[in-house]
């Protein structure tokens, strides 16, 4: 009973309190996205604090990906405002967001099939200059190699993405995102299809990145596996905020439990 009210309070608190630009490194206020007549995201507001690992959770079709796409500029939102580092960035195109320091990984991996792992990572390290002598001599490769080693692909530098196992693809996604030198990293479904030890090693990597000062938002359809990782979680359903709080608070929230048809979160 009491947990119920807490959650309700938390939810209403967020809705009532206008989100302001300085509420966090990323602040989203009243985000709404419609496709045709369909409302995918409905008046969603939240903020991400610097150097936290936020879990962004919801059942399939809850609007997680759409929210992400609106934040990173893939879709322009129908209404609402997005602030990043205190500046309004609503509708800014994706590459601009990346340049401002917001990187993301794709759930459906999108590596460049025509080049090696190393060159995939090197691409994200490139400057936006049109005419350049850079790259003629391969000077990015040292840094790119370092990133590859960091994400655990040190021994697969010259393989093509097609040759990588599933976990390797995920690592490549992380490597490509890290190559842009982000301050905020949005990670989409990092643990899908990974084995236990692999989950652990990726978690370690993400924690390490946080310790170095990076902010992370991890998107997943449930919290299993995230509990050890995240500091805080936001749960959405049908495009709007359902609950917000610490992992414990979320797991005990009856509404959340209901949304997951009893115990999906366990």
């Amino acid at each position, binding site marked *: 009973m009491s947990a119920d009210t807490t959650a309700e309070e938390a939810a209403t608190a967020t809705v009532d309190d206008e989100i302001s630009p300085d509420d966090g490194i990323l602040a989203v206020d009243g985000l709404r996205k419609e496709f045709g007549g369909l409302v995918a995201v409905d008046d969603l507001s939240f903020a991400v604090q610097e150097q936290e690992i936020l879990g962004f959770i919801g059942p399939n079709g809850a609007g997680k990906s759409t929210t992400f796409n609106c934040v990173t500029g*893939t879709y322009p939102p129908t209404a609402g405002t997005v602030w990043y580092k205190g500046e309004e960035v609503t509708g800014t*195109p*994706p*590459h*601009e967001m*990346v*340049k401002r320091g917001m*990187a*993301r990984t*794709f759930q459906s991996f*999108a*590596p*460049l*099939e*025509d*080049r*090696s792992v190393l*060159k995939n990572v*090197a*691409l*994200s390290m*490139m*400057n*936006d*200059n*049109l*005419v*350049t*002598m*850079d*790259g*003629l*001599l*391969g*000077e*990015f490769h040292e840094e790119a190699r370092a990133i590859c080693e960091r994400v655990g692909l040190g021994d697969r530098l*010259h393989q*093509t993405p097609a040759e990588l196992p599933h976990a390797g693809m995920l690592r490549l996604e992380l490597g*490509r*995102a890290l*190559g*842009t030198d982000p301050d905020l990293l949005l990670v989409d479904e990092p643990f899908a299809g990974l084995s236990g030890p692999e989950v652990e090693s990726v978690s370690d990597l993400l924690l390490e990145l946080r310790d170095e000062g990076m902010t992370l938002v991890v998107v997943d359809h449930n919290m299993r596996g995230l509990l050890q990782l995240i500091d805080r979680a936001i749960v959405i359903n049908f495009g709007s905020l359902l609950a917000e709080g610490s992992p414990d608070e979320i797991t005990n929230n009856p509404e959340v439990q209901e949304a997951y048809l009893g115990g999906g979160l366990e």
Partner: protein
Amino acid sequence: MTDNSKSRLRLLLGQLNPLGLPLRQKIGVFGLAFLIALPLLVSLPVVGQFVVMILPASSWELGLYNVAAALFFAMFAMSWDAVSGYTGEISFGHGLFFAVGGYTSAMLNMGHGLSPWVSVLGGVLLAAVAGVMIGVPALRVEGPYLSLVTLVAPLILLQLFIFMSDIFGGEQGLSNPENLVGLGFVSNYFLALGLFVAVFALLWALTRSNTGSILTAIREDEDAVSAAGLSKAKFKIFAFVLSGAIGGLAGAVYVHTPVGSPTPSELMSVIVNVEVIIAAVLGGMGTIVGAAVGGLFVAMLPDYLNLVEFTVPVIGKSISEMSFFLFAIVTLFLLNIFPGGVLRWGIALGRRATGRDGGKEGMAADGGQSPEDTGTNPVAQTMERYQEYYDNMFGGDDE
């Protein structure tokens, strides 16, 4: 800083040392050296006669003219490759740029008395603007629809030329503007060769630099480019502008030589547009080198056929009379055998012969993949790109 740039310079120069180059590049350097020495070679006794034998004409004078014309065509093909071979947006009307460059320069020279050296710049500028005009729609429409826009653009320009034929000379074009370096066989040859080398060097360096890597990434997956913090719009327009400007430059200089004139049939006819694509596809798309070699081949093959004095018995037509027809048939044949480009095939063959695998640690995307890696060469990628587009169009899986 200076130390760093010095060492970079040394590295770069080291790369240019011909002895350290892979075989295919050695062949390229040798070919270039041959082209540079050509006017000298033909004036030597004995050697000269032999060299003239292999030229696409039976006199050294016309031989040099014909090679010069082929060099201009190779520049057209390279400018096509810079945008279509790298970004995967197939242009079916690249003649637009050659024509804008050539006509602008010719009209500035003849109508306004500008020196051809200045008017050429005007041609380049307007061709670059034309590049923007095609590049911006390329952000909205893509795949076959963009090909359509590019196919139609020169036709609209031609209609305009016909409609305002007082100014543009209609289907038959304008008369010859002033020549840059007179009528000389050798001087015009070197003009063409110099420009060819400059264009080649520029495009080669650009495509082997990060820019090239980004352009091929656009061809492969536009989202990945955005995710890397790179503006695909900027690079795509850049590719069109660059290609337009270079095509315009080649077209502009071409009309100021004795081998070219500002006429639709030379600069923007359907046949020119097709020939440019054929040249690059046969040579190997997305390599620049392929377009250069393919361009020379496509431009000179009819010249060679023209030299053959043979009448096909049954139909009673001479080979020289049918040279373009035969060229088209040869092309069709080659396209069916080597869809990935003859150059690529040649490189793969060369590697097998020299026992090297090309080195996955190559410096940059130098287009050295062998055709066996299906799905990773530019042709396959471009196809995939189109296929994706069709799938979307025909209700393939949307998500």
